[in-house]
């Protein structure tokens, strides 16, 4: 990224959000922001102005007003009217006018339940974080043309269906915030699944950290928003320990806790504390429990051992809120540390998450611990057949070879 592109990226989210909120038109906001960036590339010959965002906002806003005026003129069937003279409002626009922070509003728009699920995260990353279509397509492993098409369709739906450019009122807040948080969860899962973090996912994981922290700051009283930021920070903190020297994945329990990122752990714990402070009215939500599980794993860094009994209790509580095969699989892993692999294997088989990679890995590990090596080898084989990342494949091949040799 050139310094100029970095400046545009840094300013983009706030500028596009402010424009979109003012004109209630996401398409227009992105178009005129692109216009302003083009103009900046020509005009900033001696380097960017003191406040590049304010400059871009003022120029983009003027461009938007121009376009709207032209559209109105066209609609009134007067195609050849000369360009209008600047209005007093244009003159009044000064470069040091503060840009309103409308990013929360825009996040709610992009993640509205009426927007296609597969477009929500992409739309948010594009409009709020300023990622390019090419970058987002690479992160989600879809062709760029497909992603561009999804974004166009989603923007058109938002405009035509009348999705409100408002922060939802308190009675609609929980449902709408849930849609936002699930969108970010799914997007982050894409980034986290890649242990090696090679290529496009490197920037993507950083963007997810920034976006979750931004959301937590913009919605300071929402316990689940704080909790999601906690989870993402705590999980990302483990990133440096997730690969060994050969590039193979290191499972959580085998990671060297000293390699975890202390600063990210501290931030994650601060978000978790904020979540707990906000949840005083009721019991913790599913994301708060998930964050607490990550924090319990993180506590190994100080305590020297993992509090498996606490983790098991947290999974039990989580199961009462969200009973799905993924959580049952993870719970079975915790159970194996408390009650041994035989009990855990029974529970795991009841989870029935066949076809989901971590299920087969967990099952293979339990079988190996029980000394059932032939079955373990077959289960590693099943996991490998699901097309794991390179880092996971290296780990699984090593484990399979060990179980065949035993």
């Amino acid at each position, binding site marked *: 990224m050139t310094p100029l592109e970095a400046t545009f990226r840094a300013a983009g989210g706030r500028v596009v959000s402010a424009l979109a909120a003012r004109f209630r038109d996401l398409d227009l906001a992105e178009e005129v922001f692109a216009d302003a960036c083009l103009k900046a590339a020509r005009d900033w010959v001696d380097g960017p102005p003191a406040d590049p965002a304010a400059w871009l906002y003022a120029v983009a806003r003027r461009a938007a007003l121009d376009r709207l005026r032209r559209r109105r003129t066209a609609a009134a069937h007067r195609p050849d009217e000369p360009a209008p003279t600047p209005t007093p409002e244009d003159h009044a626009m000064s470069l040091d006018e503060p840009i309103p922070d409308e990013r929360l509003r825009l996040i709610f728009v992009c993640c*509205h339940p*009426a927007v296609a699920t597969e477009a929500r995260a992409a739309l948010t990353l594009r409009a709020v974080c300023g990622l390019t279509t090419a970058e987002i397509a690479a992160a989600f492993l879809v062709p760029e043309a497909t992603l561009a098409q999804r974004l166009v369709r989603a923007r058109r739906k938002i405009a*035509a*269906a*009348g*999705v*409100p450019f*408002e922060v*939802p009122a308190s009675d*609609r807040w929980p449902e709408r915030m849930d849609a936002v948080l699930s969108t970010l969860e799914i997007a982050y899962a894409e980034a986290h699944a890649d242990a090696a973090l090679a290529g496009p996912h490197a920037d993507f994981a950083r963007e997810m950290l920034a976006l979750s922290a931004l959301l937590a700051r913009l919605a300071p009283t929402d316990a689940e928003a704080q909790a999601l930021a906690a989870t993402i920070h705590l999980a990302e903190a483990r990133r440096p320990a997730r690969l060994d020297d050969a590039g193979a994945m290191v499972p959580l329990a085998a990671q060297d806790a000293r390699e975890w990122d202390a600063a990210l752990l501290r931030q994650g714990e601060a978000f978790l504390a904020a979540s707990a402070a906000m949840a005083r009215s009721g019991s913790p939500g599913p994301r708060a429990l998930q964050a607490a599980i990550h924090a319990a794993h993180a506590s190994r860094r100080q305590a020297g051992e993992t509090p498996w009994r606490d983790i098991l209790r947290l999974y039990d509580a989580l199961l009462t809120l969200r009973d799905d095969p993924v959580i049952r699989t993870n719970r079975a892993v915790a159970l194996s540390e408390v009650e041994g692999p035989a009990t855990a294997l029974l529970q795991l088989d009841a989870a029935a998450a066949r076809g989901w990679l971590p299920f087969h890995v967990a099952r293979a590990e339990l079988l190996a611990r029980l000394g059932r090596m032939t079955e373990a080898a077959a289960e590693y084989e099943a996991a490998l057949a699901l097309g794991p990342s390179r880092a996971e494949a290296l780990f699984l091949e090593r484990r399979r070879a060990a179980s065949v040799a035993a």
Partner: protein
Amino acid sequence: MQYALIIYENEAESYPDGEQGEAWRAVLAAHEAFAGDLHERGLLRGGSGLRHSDTATTVRVTGAGRTVHDGPFAETREQLGGFYLIEAADLDEAIAWAKKLPVAANASIEIRPCLDMPQPGQD
């Protein structure tokens, strides 16, 4: 903005005794109350309940011309049962009304923004 709230219900499951049944009478009474609520707030622009889909007739338009057929346009699990035209500030308000709309059992309510078209006789 104007929205259409379009109601799809499984007639056989929702109204086992057809238009003579208790379920039918009950849902009509609920619709009267719902429409009354919309009307009082000045948000009702139109709409109607529809008779059972076995009363439907379809004109099919193809390159060969226009032909008349017995039955609804498509045989589906759920049938079009009626629609409301309402005024709402935005999609969230329309969704809130759709969530309150009375139905007898499982149903879908499709929300569609209306085209902005000049009304005949109003200029």
